[in-house]
């Protein structure tokens, strides 16, 4: 059980960042990376609910082979909304902008990010992009899918494509700014003694994610700009009637979008490394390999985008090249999973909620990764491309992997962020419900995929009916599972016991300041002398009596 201790003497000296100014202005014009992280937390939670309702509506619609709830026109707008909101307004900002913003300065022993004003600007740019997307949705929404394939998106669609595309164009700058801020901070503002190979692996994963954010998002910007030019100004870049090539759009789009899926999953992997070591009280197995695998994923992620276009008419030879590279990109992920497994060896494992979520992550992410191999093999992709097999694959990685890691991070750092401890048993029940609901929702979709049910189909032939009903039941359980944390976490805000500085007795500089930390993070910048994840030192008897001597 996590320990709740009386407030340590240093607590009274420094007001926590939460109580340091309570006016609305102190929140909306803050330059404190912790408050900006909370601003992002509220925004992406609302967007998660919006995207989630769209998903629930779609699953209800798929209960019957013929549309009964919504027309196919509305269904097309629903899956576009679900795709756009979930990808750009929940998955990409979730861990980097909330936990990255909050924890990066704390983990490297800095007082704030390198450019605090730019950090606040990134939140306003994010909300401006979101406002444009919401305007497009309220006016009727786009019906092009989150992929915006031309020539449908540029000439034939009558939805609000330009409003949606410019909303994402603006939100893209918020990602670029966040990535730039993190890279500069990690390079220039580490605490004395904190060499690169003493950094927590969460910082390594944030660093690799920032590289992808900075180098991939500009290509999304130019792609969306070209669609808007083609749709508004009639400038025919991808228009086949003027000799243009629709596949060129797919090359530009997927050059951004495949690295973008690594932006979504890499921070999750960083969270897993933190939690696996903390709850098995052991140094991670093969630190350098796990650190370098994050960088390898960031680099190789840029070489594989062609595997989205195997059946699109791309030449056979480039299909072969992309298939081979896609197999290589799975190696670093495999290294990570194997190292996490090896970290459990000879540990002292405690099954608190964060670890339950992480065990769920490792299980579901492994299945997601292995089905990715199936899709990377050319002959199988011919059969499985654009079917529910692909939907199941990327939901296993995004929902089974990334969202599980997000909830694990939420529970693991909740005492540090809010200074309160959440009730343990309801949290464990929620974790198990989410795991069961998830599998019931998405495993049937693998079978649907191999049976040949294409994606984005409100009508479907009757032989797919039974598995779709199972999937919808699973979605109901999953939806319920996601609501539970909202209840008991809010409950813990008011009635939860007070958290000590280091409730999990974890390593890492963020646990050496008070929780919630003061606005300037540390009384004095700590000097790092030990290696990362040195749990032998933390659990050793000599530290226990030194701490007793301190209080």
């Amino acid at each position: 059980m996590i320990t709740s201790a009386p407030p340590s003497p240093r607590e009274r000296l420094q007001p926590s960042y939460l109580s340091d100014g309570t006016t609305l202005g102190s929140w909306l014009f803050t330059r404190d990376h912790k408050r900006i992280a909370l601003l992002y937390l509220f925004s992406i939670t609302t967007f998660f609910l919006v995207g989630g309702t769209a998903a629930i509506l779609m699953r209800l619609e798929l209960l019957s082979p013929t549309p009964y709830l919504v027309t196919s026109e509305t269904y097309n707008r629903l899956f576009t909304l679900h795709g756009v909101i979930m990808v750009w307004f929940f998955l990409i900002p979730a861990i980097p902008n909330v936990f990255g913003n909050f924890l990066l300065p704390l983990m490297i022993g800095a007082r704030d990010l390198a450019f605090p004003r730019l950090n606040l600007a990134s939140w306003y740019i994010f909300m401006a992009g979101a406002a444009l997307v919401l305007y497009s949705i309220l006016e009727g929404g786009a019906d092009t899918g989150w992929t915006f394939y031309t020539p449908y998106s540029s000439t034939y669609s009558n939805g609000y494509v330009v409003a949606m595309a410019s909303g994402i164009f603006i939100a893209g700058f918020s990602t670029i700014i966040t990535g730039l801020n993190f890279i500069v901070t990690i390079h220039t503002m580490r605490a004395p003694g904190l060499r690169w190979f003493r950094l927590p692996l969460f910082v390594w994963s944030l660093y690799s994610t920032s590289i992808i954010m900075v180098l991939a998002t500009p290509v999304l910007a130019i792609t969306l700009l070209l669609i808007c030019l083609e749709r508004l100004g009639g400038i025919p870049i991808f228009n086949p009637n003027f000799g243009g090539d629709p596949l060129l759009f797919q090359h530009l789009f997927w050059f951004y979008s495949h690295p973008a899926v690594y932006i979504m999953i890499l921070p999750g992997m960083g969270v897993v490394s933190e939690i696996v070591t903390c709850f098995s009280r052991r140094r991670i197995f093969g630190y350098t390999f796990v650190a370098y695998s994050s960088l390898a994923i960031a680099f190789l992620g840029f070489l594989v985008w062609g595997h989205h276009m195997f059946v699109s008419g791309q030449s056979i030879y480039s299909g072969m090249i992309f298939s081979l590279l896609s197999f290589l990109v799975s190696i670093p992920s495999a290294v990570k999973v194997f190292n996490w497994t090896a970290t459990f060896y000879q540990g002292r494992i405690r099954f608190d909620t964060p670890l339950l979520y992480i065990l769920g992550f490792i299980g579901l992410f492994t299945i997601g990764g292995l089905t990715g191999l199936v899709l990377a093999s050319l002959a199988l992709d011919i059969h499985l491309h654009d079917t529910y097999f692909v939907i199941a694959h990327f939901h296993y990685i995004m929902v089974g992997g990334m969202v599980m890691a997000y909830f694990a991070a939420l529970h693991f750092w909740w005492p540090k962020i809010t200074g309160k401890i959440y009730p343990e048993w309801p949290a464990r029940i929620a974790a198990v419900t989410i795991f069961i609901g998830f599998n019931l929702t998405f495993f049937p979709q693998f079978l649907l995929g191999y049976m040949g049910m294409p994606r984005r189909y409100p009508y479907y032939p009757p032989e797919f009916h039974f598995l779709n009903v199972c999937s919808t039941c699973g979605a109901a359980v999953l939806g319920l599972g996601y609501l539970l944390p909202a209840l008991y976490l809010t409950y813990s805000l008011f009635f939860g016991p007070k958290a000590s500085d280091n409730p999990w007795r974890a390593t890492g500089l963020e646990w050496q300041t008070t929780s919630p930390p003061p606005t300037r993070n540390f009384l004095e910048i700590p000097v790092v002398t030990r290696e990362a994840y040195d749990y032998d030192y933390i659990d050793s008897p000599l530290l226990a009596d030194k701490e007793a001597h301190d209080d």
Partner: protein
Amino acid sequence: MNWLPFPPEASSYSGRVDTIFFSLLALCFVVALGVFGLILFFCVRYREGSSAPRSAKRPHSAPIEVTWMVIPMIIFLVVFVFAGKEYAYMYSPPSTGTEIDVVGKQWMWKMLHADGQREIDQLHIPINQDIIITLTSEDVIHSFYIPAFRIKHDAVPGSYSRFWFRAVKAGTYHIFCAQYCGMNHSQMIGEVVAMAPNDYAKWEEQGHPASDMVQSGETLFHQVGCSGCHAPTATIHAPLLEGLYGKPVALQDGTIVTADRQYLRDSILLPNKQIAAGFAPVMPTYQGQLTEEQVNELVAYIISMRNAQTPVEQRNTAP
């Protein structure tokens, strides 16, 4: 493998695709079992408070890391080669076979048999014969997908895609549109009816095929004015089309291209894309005046003249 609710193995290579799939699935199952089993074992054995020995704390061992990088790489190479070979086999049609033109149009599939027979959302084919599909689209990107044959290819407007299959089991199978193409994307469903040869022959007669594609191509050739320049008797200096199909053509910028279907289609719709050497780029574009079927018919007519040896052969090679 039909006890699973998976689609029947109705084409010649669907069996091979299934074997690749199930062997890769078995491999993945072994890996997943290994990882989950190990985690479960460690979680039980090394849970907090258990008395398991915890002495050797070797947090790092490079050899293990290298092995579980190299072994997957080797396995992946093997899988890549098998799947890649099959992919190339499916997407490079044999030289001879029953040619069928499929045109995707917003929310229907239009099939055009060689003998001029037209079908909408229906495709009757004989089994045990190589069927070569030439696929294009008139508006947005569609994707011609027959799960039972394990074949799928995007119909991209503005270019021809060619692939092939050979039905081995008679029956009626779905044709889906797999690439999102607008409001009724999910209703763009057709049917492939694979029939035994004699049933197919019976269907063919009573199907009273409209005028032969080559004949309608010929009538069109005169109707829209191609014969004005390209007929042997024409006075205007234009490339002769007799014996053109399949032969190399010298272009103005010195490169040599073979006169395949794409070249013929581009010369009709985008005449200035590749100008034949020694000819002025005066040909008007027919873009927008001809539907895809009419272009197909003209191309079929030109192809039908590929071995017509007319005395004017040498005129083609004028300087």
